[in-house]
């Protein structure tokens, strides 16, 4: 795998093609790492690939070579189960070698099953228990205000995660402090882990119907921006708009597809987390434009 993107770093102006390539590389690393670890979530990381690519390669003011840079923008993955997607974006951005991704989930790895800030520099909070990241992000935005620092606090939530009451506690409290340096993004991929039975695909229905999330956030006093979460150009535009505060916190509702990028994973709840079979691994990598050297797929496959 060529580390070209990690090497060149963020393009000066918006390079849509490069961002798309980053998103593709994120998906490739997600599938490769999860297959290697024989554990980990898949659907959520795949739906968030463009969001993570745009954040780490365009929007966030960060220094991969100085992860603790005090004035950096902060990013919290509130939907912590998509950790491997975040790790892939960070590796590609140069925080650590892409090869390290293969330690994902393993004992003693810095790349824990859910983000552990005590182990990996560059993580702004430990997450994994849903609904919590947004509160920490609010605290960061509030602390930046109190200490007069120009720091933007970004947090990525799942649409199922928005069922957690803590999300609405934060949603109700943040506008009190006019935190327009707080930017929440909802990966609205229309699936949670298992969900309510109903007449949706595979007999389950989405965690939120179209429009419902926007109405809720608006009623709680947030500025709501909606976007196609797989359109990198649109994401860059909306996130830059979000960065220009108007006195309210902003939520970007990104319409996405769970499992995006691998046809047989798209829109199926059961790919939330699942062991990848050898043939599935091969076709997934092929679809993502990285056909396997016969050597790679097989052994892991047989080990299953």
């Amino acid at each position, binding site marked *: 795998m060529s580390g070209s993107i990690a090497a060149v770093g963020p393009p000066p102006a918006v390079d849509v093609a490069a961002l798309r390539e980053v998103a593709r590389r994120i998906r490739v690393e997600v599938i490769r790492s999860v297959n290697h*670890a024989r*554990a*980990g979530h898949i659907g959520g990381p795949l739906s968030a690939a463009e969001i993570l690519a745009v954040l780490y390669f365009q929007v966030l003011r960060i220094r991969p070579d100085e992860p603790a840079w005090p004035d950096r923008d902060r990013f919290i993955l509130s939907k*912590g*189960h998509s950790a491997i997607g975040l790790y892939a974006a960070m590796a590609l951005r140069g925080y650590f070698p892409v090869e390290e991704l293969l330690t994902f*989930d*393993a*004992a*003693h*790895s810095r790349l*824990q*099953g*859910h983000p*552990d800030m*005590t182990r990996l520099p560059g993580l702004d909070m*430990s*997450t*994994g*228990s*849903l*609904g919590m990241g947004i509160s920490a992000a609010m605290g960061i935005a509030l602390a930046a205000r109190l200490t007069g620092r120009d720091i933007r606090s970004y947090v990525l939530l799942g649409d*199922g*995660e928005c*069922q*957690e*009451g803590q999300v609405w506690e934060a949603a109700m409290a943040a506008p009190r402090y006019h935190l327009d340096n707080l930017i929440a993004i909802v990966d609205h991929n229309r699936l*949670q*882990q*298992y*969900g*309510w*039975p109903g007449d949706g695909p595979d007999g389950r229905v989405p*965690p939120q119907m179209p429009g419902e999330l926007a109405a809720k956030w608006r009623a709680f006093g947030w500025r709501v921006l909606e976007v196609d979460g797989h359109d990198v150009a649109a994401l860059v535009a909306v996130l830059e708009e979000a960065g220009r505060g108007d006195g309210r916190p902003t939520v970007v509702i990104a319409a996405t597809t769970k499992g995006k990028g691998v046809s047989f994973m798209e829109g199926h*709840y*059961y790919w*939330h*987390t699942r062991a990848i079979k050898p043939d599935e691994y091969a076709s997934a990598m092929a679809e993502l434009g990285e056909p396997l050297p016969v050597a790679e797929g097989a052994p892991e496959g047989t080990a299953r």
Partner: protein
Amino acid sequence: MTATAAPAACLRPPLPPGRPMRELFGETLAELAIEDPRIVVLDGDVGSSTRADIFEKAHPTRYLQMGIAEQNMLGVAAGMSTLGLVPFISTFVAFSVVRPLDQVRVLIAQPRSNVKITPSYAGLFTGQTGMSHIIVDDLSIMRSLPNMVCVAPADHVEAALVLRWAAGYDGPCYVRLGRDATAQLFDERHRFEFGRAVTLRSGHDVSLVSTGAQTPRTLEAAELLAASGIDAGVLHVATVKPLDVGALVEVATRTDHVITVEEHTILGGLGGAVAEALSEHRPTRVDRIGLRDVDVESGANADLLDIYGLSAQRVAEQVRALVHQR
């Protein structure tokens, strides 16, 4: 109550592989619900993990998805119980004991609501998810709540028996289930008696007291110890609360040295309960093997057992060192 002096009917090492306790959760409740119309299952969006989906297939209208909102789920369960239904909770230990603890306290334990808190993903085996999902102080927490009883079955056979007992027990209870298959300890002749510890092996040098999925590994450790000349008894304490004090005093008196072994922190869990009981009724040297108040991490099950010293091998080593120390 005192321990059966004669070792209970259990298999002998090498133990055969068991089945995941969580599968017995889905299957047993599906069976029980045929006879018992009061049973419903409330799921915190993890039915595909806890295998509540098995129950859902059998009783679709009695499977109630509550979404990713555990505080509300426990409160709904409490309300349902006041109309005579018997709700079983389907989620992980982290999200049924820790996230909604205030609801468990005020709406379930205090009013003695007939709600069954029956999570899986207990202990270290959580599918390589790491610190945020691994809870090893659930027994410390639940044990300290008035009106709550705590049961940790050793394998899938006992898990099924405990779930049957729980459905009939009138009041709140906590049943700690595991995600992954471990060894099978009991065969079909096993009977679960609430509040009663069972002697799996009587020994004269030291008494190992163990609970939950750790017990099969503790029994295997005892075999390893026998090979190196240490005669270790094994007492299985499935019911951590109320504690079988009589059985503990008996093994303490027999060996004068008790070592607790648990896939749980050594602060306030089984080890704490045993130390409390013996300090009061029969002061004895008690050493506690378990998680030593450390952060945990993700990793393969075997690696975790090794890192935290809970594999049969590592338990045997620690017991050996402790016995020779004296």
